[in-house]
C-alpha cells in the first residue's frame, strides 16, 4: 500500500504487501497460504513468495530458524510478490531482526510482544528490547500480547500451554484478515477439514482465529491504523485457482501424457526444491502415472530413459546437483535419440549451495554441461502457471524430435503461487504419438525423418523391428557401430542440425512489452519475468524508451531474436546468476549484452530493475 492514513471507515488501497515472519515451527507458511486463499476468493490479483530455512526445525528463537511468507495482493494485475512489505508480522525477536530492514518506512509492524523475552532477545542478538528503546519509531507498531490472548481464547479446550500456543498463528491471521476486510470462513472450513479426526484441535484453532478477528473489531488500534480494503482486481473472465509452479508442472506433465497418448513414467530422487513434483505425481496414479523413487539421481534419469525406450513419456525431475549427476545419462539419451523430459528446478549453487533459495545459475550447465558435442533443447518457464504450459511444450518437442529436453524453473516459481486461469483440456493441442509397427524397406534405428531428422521410435515388443542401440557412435546409413572418422563428423553435425531445427517449430520471438526496436531492450528468461515486466511497464509509463523480450526457448533460440537484439542501442540482461544468458547472447549474436546480476538467493525487486534501466538510459 502506498500510504496509511487515518480513516473512520475502511480505506481503499490499490495494493498491499504483507510479510508473515516467525519461527519455522510457528506455522508461518500455513498462515500465509490461508491468507492467500482468502485473498484469492476476494477477487484480488496476487503473487506469493515463501522463504524458509533449509533446516527442518532449527532451534527455536534463532535467526537462522526464521521462516517467512510474503504476499502481494492488489486491485490490478500484478506480477511479483512485491519489493518491500507494507506490513510485517513478526512473531518473535529473531523474525523482527531478520526482516525489519525490508519494511517500508512508515509501514505497519505487528509484533507478538510477549515473545520478546530475555532469552529470545538474546538469541536474536538484541542487547535491549527494541519495543522499548524507540528504535522502531520509523514504523507504526502494533505490539500485542498475542501469546497471552491466544492462551485465553483456547483455554476452554484444556490443552497444555505448548499445544495451546500453537494456535497463535491463527490468532494473528484472524487479526490480519480483519485489518484487510477479509472473512475467516474459508479458513474455518479448511481447519475443520484438515483436523477432521482431531476436532478439539480444529475448534481451538478456530477459537483463536475468531478471537484475533474480534480483537481487531473491538479493540482500539493505535491512531492512524486501518482498517483497510483492497477492491477486486479486473482479471480476464474465466475460472481461476491458485497454483504453485511445482503443482502446475506436475499437472502439465500429466496433461502432456493425455495429449500425447503416452504413459507418463517419472524417475526421481528427493531433492529440494523439486521433491513436491514427485509427491504430486505420486498422487496421480489414477491418471496412469507411474512414479519411481530411485536409489539415486542417476538411476532416476536412467529409469526414465529406459521407460522412453519402452514407449513411455520418460521424465525426471530434480535440481542443479541432480542434473550434474544425470549428465552422462542425458548424453546417452542424446546419442540414443530418445525423448526425455528433464526438469531442473534451480536453487542456489554451486555444490549444495542454498537449497531452499532461488537462483538461475544452471543455465550454462543445461546448455553445455555434458561430455562431447551434445546439443540439448533447453526451455524455461516464466511464471508458476507457465510451468503447466512449458511442461507440455517440453514433452511435445521431445517426442516430435526424438530428443531429451531440459525444462528450467526455479525455487521461486516452484513454491510461489499466483491466480491461474484454468484451461480446458479440449483447447490444448494434442500431439499424438504413433509407434511404427511395420518394417519399412531398409529399416534401421537411425533411419531419419527428412524434415525433423528424428529417428523412428520403434519400441521393444514390436515384431520385426528388433534393433540394437547404445552409447557408441552409429553409422549414419545402417545404425551399426561405427568408428569411421567421416561418419562421426557427419553424425555430430546431424545431431546438431536436428536440435537447431527445433527453432523452425516454435513461434518467432515476440516483444513482450514495447516496440520492436529503440533505445533500450531488457532481455530476461525464467522467473524474472514478473519483476522485469513490472519494471519495464513503470518505466514506459514515465515515457522512458525501453522494451522487453522474454525468452522461453533458450536452446535453440527462437527465430527473430537476432533481429530484435540488433534493433536496440543497448541490451541489458537481468539474471539471478553471475551472467549466463548474457554470455550466450554474446556468443551467439556478437552483441554487447550487459548483465544485471543478483546472486543473493532472493528474487529481483522491481525497483532494482528500474534502477538498472535508469542507469543504462542515463549512459546511453
Amino acid at each position, binding site marked *: 500500500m502506498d500510504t496509511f492514513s487515518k480513516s473512520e471507515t475502511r480505506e481503499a488501497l490499490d495494493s498491499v504487501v504483507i510479510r508473515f515472519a516467525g519461527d519455522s515451527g510457528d506455522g508461518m507458511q500455513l498462515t500465509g497460504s490461508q491468507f492467500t*486463499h482468502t485473498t*484469492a*476468493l476476494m477477487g484480488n490479483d496476487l503473487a506469493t513468495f515463501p522463504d524458509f530455512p533449509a533446516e527442518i526445525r532449527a532451534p527455536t528463537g534463532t535467526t537462522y530458524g526464521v521462516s517467512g511468507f510474503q504476499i502481494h495482493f492488489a486491485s490490478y494485475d500484478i506480477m511479483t510478490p512485491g519489493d518491500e512489505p507494507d506490513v510485517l508480522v513478526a512473531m518473535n525477536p529473531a523474525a523482527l531482526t531478520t526482516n525489519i530492514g525490508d519494511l517500508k518506512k512508515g509501514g505497519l509492524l505487528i509484533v507478538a510482544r510477549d515473545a520478546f523475552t530475555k532469552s529470545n532477545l538474546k538469541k536474536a542478538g538484541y542487547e535491549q528490547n527494541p519495543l522499548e528503546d524507540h528504535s522502531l519509531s520509523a514504523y507504526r507498531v502494533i505490539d500485542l500480547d498475542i501469546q497471552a490472548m491466544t492462551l485465553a481464547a483456547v483455554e476452554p479446550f484444556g490443552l497444555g500451554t505448548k499445544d495451546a500456543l500453537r494456535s497463535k498463528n491463527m490468532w494473528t491471521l484472524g487479526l490480519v484478515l480483519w485489518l484487510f476486510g477479509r472473512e475467516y470462513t474459508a479458513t474455518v472450513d479448511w481447519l475443520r477439514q484438515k483436523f477432521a479426526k482431531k476436532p478439539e484441535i480444529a475448534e481451538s484453532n478456530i477459537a483463536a482465529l475468531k478471537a484475533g478477528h474480534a480483537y481487531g473489531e473491538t479493540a482500539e488500534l493505535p491512531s492512524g491504523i486501518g482498517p483497510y480494503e483492497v477492491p477486486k482486481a479486473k*482479471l*480476464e*473472465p*474465466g*475460472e*481461476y485457482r*491458485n497454483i504453485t509452479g511445482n503443482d502446475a508442472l506436475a*499437472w502439465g506433465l*500429466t*496433461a502432456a501424457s*493425455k495429449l500425447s497418448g503416452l504413459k507418463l*513414467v517419472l*524417475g526421481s530422487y528427493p531433492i529440494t526444491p523439486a521433491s513436491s513434483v514427485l509427491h504430486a505425481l505420486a498422487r*496421480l*496414479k*489414477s*491418471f*496412469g*502415472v*507411474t512414479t*519411481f523413487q*530411485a*536409489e*539415486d539421481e*542417476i*538411476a*532416476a534419469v*536412467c*529409469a*526414465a*530413459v*529406459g*521407460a*522412453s*525406450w*519402452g*514407449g*513411455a513419456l520418460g521424465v525426471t525431475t530434480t535440481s542443479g546437483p541432480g542434473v550434474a549427476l544425470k549428465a552422462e*545419462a542425458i548424453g*546417452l539419451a542424446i546419442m540414443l535419440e530418445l525423448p526425455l523430459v528433464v526438469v531442473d528446478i534451480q536453487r542456489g549453487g554451486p555444490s549444495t549451495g542454498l537449497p531452499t533459495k532461488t537462483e538461475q545459475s544452471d543455465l550454462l550447465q543445461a546448455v553445455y554441461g555434458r561430455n562431447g558435442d551434445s546439443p540439448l533443447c533447453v526451455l524455461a518457464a516464466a511464471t508458476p502457471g507457465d510451468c503447466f504450459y512449458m511442461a507440455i511444450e517440453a514433452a511435445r518437442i521431445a517426442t516430435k524430435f526424438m530428443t531429451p529436453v531440459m525444462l528450467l524453473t526455479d525455487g521461486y516459481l516452484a513454491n510461489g503461487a499466483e491466480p491461474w486461469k*484454468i*484451461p*480446458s*483440456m479440449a483447447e490444448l493441442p494434442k500431439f499424438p504419438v504413433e509407434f511404427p509397427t511395420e518394417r519399412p524397406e531398409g529399416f534401421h534405428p537411425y533411419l531419419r525423418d527428412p524434415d525433423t531428422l528424428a529417428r523412428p521410435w520403434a*519400441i*521393444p*515388443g*514390436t*515384431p520385426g523391428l*528388433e*534393433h*540394437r*542401440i*547404445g*552409447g*557408441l557412435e552409429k553409422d549414419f546409413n545402417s545404425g551399426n*557401430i561405427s568408428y569411421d572418422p567421416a561418419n562421426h563428423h557427419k553424425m555430430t553435425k546431424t545431431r546438431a542440425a536436428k536440435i537447431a531445427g527445433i527453432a523452425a517449430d516454435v513461434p518467432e520471438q515476440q516483444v513482450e512489452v514495447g516496440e520492436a526496436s529503440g533505445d533500450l531492450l531488457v532481455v530476461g528468461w525464467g522467473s524474472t519475468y514478473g519483476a522485469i515486466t513490472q519494471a519495464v511497464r513503470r518505466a514506459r509509463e514515465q515515457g522512458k524508451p525501453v522494451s522487453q523480450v522474454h525468452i522461453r526457448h533458450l536452446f535453440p533460440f527462437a527465430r527473430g531474436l537476432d533481429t530484435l537484439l540488433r534493433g536496440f542501442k543497448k541490451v541489458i540482461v537481468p539474471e539471478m546468476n553471475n551472467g549466463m544468458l548474457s554470455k550466450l547472447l554474446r556468443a551467439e549474436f556478437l552483441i554487447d549484452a550487459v548483465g544485471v546480476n543478483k546472486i543473493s538467493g532472493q528474487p529481483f525487486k522491481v525497483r532494482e530493475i528500474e534502477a538498472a534501466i535508469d542507469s543504462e538510459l542515463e549512459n546511453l
Partner: protein
Amino acid sequence: MSPSEPAKKLTRKDFTSDQDIRWCPGCGDYAILATIQRTLPTVGADPAKTVFLSGIGCSSRFPYYMNTYGFHSIHGRAPAFATGLKLTNPELDIWVITGDGDGLSIGGNHLMHVLRRNVDLQIILFNNRIYGLTKGQYSPTSLVGLRSPSTPLGSVDMPVTPALLALGAGARFVARSVDTLAKHLGPTFVEARGYRGTSFIEVLQNCPVFHDGAWNHVKDRAHAGQTMLMLEHGKPMLFGDKDGPQQGLRLKPNTLELEVVTLGEGGITEADVLVHDETNRPMAFLLAGLEPPNFPIALGVLLREQAAAYDASVVAQVESAKQSGLTDMDALLRTGHTWTVE
C-alpha cells in the same frame, strides 16, 4: 515369461544378429553367448519381446550380437534402465548383462537396489576378476596380491563374493555357473528365466588376455569333481572325482559352519549329508561363501524364494488407482478452491 509364444519353431540362428563379434579369440564370452542363443529357442522365447540390456565393459557388448531388442547403456547403470523399461512394459523378457567391474564397482548401488526390489528380470554377471576393456586393472573380485597395471605391487583390496553380496541385498534367486559348462549353464538360464522376480546368475568367466586361468583352480578337469558342487534341489550335496572317494557336506556339530565329510570314513553314510533346499536362505549364505581349496565351489541354484515382483506391484497400484480415483484431467485442474471472474 512371455505370455504369447510365436508359432514358428525358432533356432539359434533366429537369435543371432548380423554383427561381427569383437571379443578376443578364446574369450569366455563366446561360450556364454552361444549358450544363450541355443537356449532361448528351446523355451519358446520371442525375439520381439526379448531385451538384452548392458552397461559398459567387454561383457556389455553382448546385446549387439543378439537378434533381439538390445540396449548398450552407460557404465554400471543397466539395472536402472531395465527397471524403467520393465515398469513401462512388464511383458518384456529382460536380460541385464554385466561384469564384475560394471555390476559390482561403478554399478554396485543399482545392483543392490534392483535385487532388493525384485524387478522381474535376469542379471547375468560375467565374473572374470579383472577389467578387460580398460586393459587389465584389478576388479572388485580380484584376489589380494593380484598384480595389474594399477596394482604393480599387488592388490591389497579385499575382494567381494558376488553371490554373498546379492544375498545380502535381498536377492531371492541366486545361481552360479561356469562359462564353458554349457550343459549346466543353459539349464541355469532356463531356471532364471522362469523365476518371477530378479534372478541373479554369476558366471565364472575366463579372460584369456588379462587374467587367463583365474578360475583354473575350479575348472581344472583333473580335479573338477572335488572343486565343483553341483546343487540340485532335494538331492544330497555330494561331490568327488569319478575314481576317488565320494564326499559330501554336512553341518559341523555345534557350529554354524559346513564341513566336508568322506563317505565310508568314520561310519559316514549318504544319510549324514545335507540335502540341498533352494528355499533355505541361511543355507544359501553358507553355500555362497564356499571356495577351493578347502571346499568345492557351489554351482546351480543356491536360492529360490517366491516373493512379489516389483513391476507387478507397481502396475497393480496404478490399475487399482484407475478404478477408484479421479481420471478426468479437467476435473483435476479444478480440484480444491476455484472462483469465477465474470
